C-alpha cells in the first residue's frame, strides 16, 4: 500500500517538475510548481512528517506560490510572455542536468548510509518532539529565523516601494 502511494506521489512530483521545466508559459510553470509542492507534501505524509506536510501546504503552496503568482502578474505585459533560451543553451543545460542526475543517483544509492538504508530504525518523531527540540536544542536558530523574517519583511517592503 505504501509502495503504491509512493509511486503515485512520486509520479505526480516528477511529472509536474518536468512540466515546470518544459512549459513556456510562466503561469503554467507556476501551476506545475503547485503540483510538485502538493506531491512533496503527500510524500511528507508518507514519511510520517505530518507537521512538515502541513507547513509545506500552508507556507509553500499557500504563501510562496501565491507570492510567485503575484510576481508573475505584476511583471509581465501579457501572461504569454515567454523568453526562450537558444538551442545551444538548452542542449548544454540538458546535458549538465543529465550528468548531475546520473552522478547524484549513483553516488547516493551506492553510499553506505549508517546506520541503515533498509528500514526505519526508531519511531518517527512526533509533532511534540519537533516542537520540543525547536524550543530547546534549536532555540538559537529559531530566534535568528524570527529576526530574519522581520528583516525580510522590512527589506521586501523597502525594495518594492514605488519611488514617488
Amino acid at each position: 500500500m505504501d509502495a503504491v502511494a509512493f509511486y503515485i506521489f512520486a509520479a505526480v512530483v516528477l511529472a509536474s517538475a518536468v512540466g515546470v521545466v518544459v512549459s513556456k508559459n510562466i503561469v503554467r510553470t507556476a501551476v506545475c510548481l503547485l503540483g510538485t509542492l502538493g506531491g512533496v507534501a503527500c510524500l511528507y505524509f508518507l514519511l510520517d512528517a505530518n507537521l512538515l506536510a502541513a507547513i509545506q501546504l500552508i507556507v509553500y503552496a499557500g504563501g510562496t506560490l501565491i507570492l510567485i503568482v503575484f510576481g508573475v502578474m505584476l511583471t509581465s505585459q501579457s501572461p504569454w510572455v515567454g523568453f526562450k533560451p537558444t538551442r545551444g543553451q538548452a542542449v548544454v543545460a540538458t546535458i549538465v542536468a543529465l550528468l548531475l542526475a546520473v552522478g547524484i543517483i549513483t553516488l547516493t544509492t551506492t553510499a553506505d548510509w549508517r546506520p541503515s538504508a533498509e528500514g526505519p530504525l526508531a519511531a518517527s518523531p512526533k509533532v511534540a518532539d519537533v516542537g520540543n527540540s525547536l524550543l530547546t536544542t534549536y532555540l538559537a536558530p529559531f530566534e535568528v529565523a524570527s529576526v530574519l523574517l522581520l528583516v525580510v519583511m522590512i527589506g521586501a517592503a523597502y525594495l518594492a516601494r514605488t519611488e514617488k
Partner: protein
Amino acid sequence: MFEIGLNHYLVLSALVFSLGVLCMATKRNAIGILIGVELVLNSANINLVAFSKYSAGAADGHIFAVFVILLAAAEAAIAIAIFMNFYSALRTIDVDRGDELRN
C-alpha cells in the same frame, strides 16, 4: 521493488534536483529561475525528511526542513521585490538584460 526504502527517496530527490537545475539554466524569465530554486530546495527537503525517517529517527531532519521552508519563503519575498524593481527599470524581467541594471 515493492518495499520503499531510503534509496527510492534519494533517487526521486536527485531527479527533482536535476530538473530544478535545468529549470534555472533554461528559463530566461527571472521568476522561472526562482521557481527552479524552489524545486531544488524541495529536493533537499525530501532528502532531509527521508534521512530523518530511515536513518536517524530524531526530529533533527524535520527541523532542518522547517528552516529550509522558512528560508525559501524569505528568499522568494526578497526576490520578487527585486524583480519588481527590475521590471520598473527595464519593463521586462529577462535576466539576459540584467547587466543593464547598472547605472
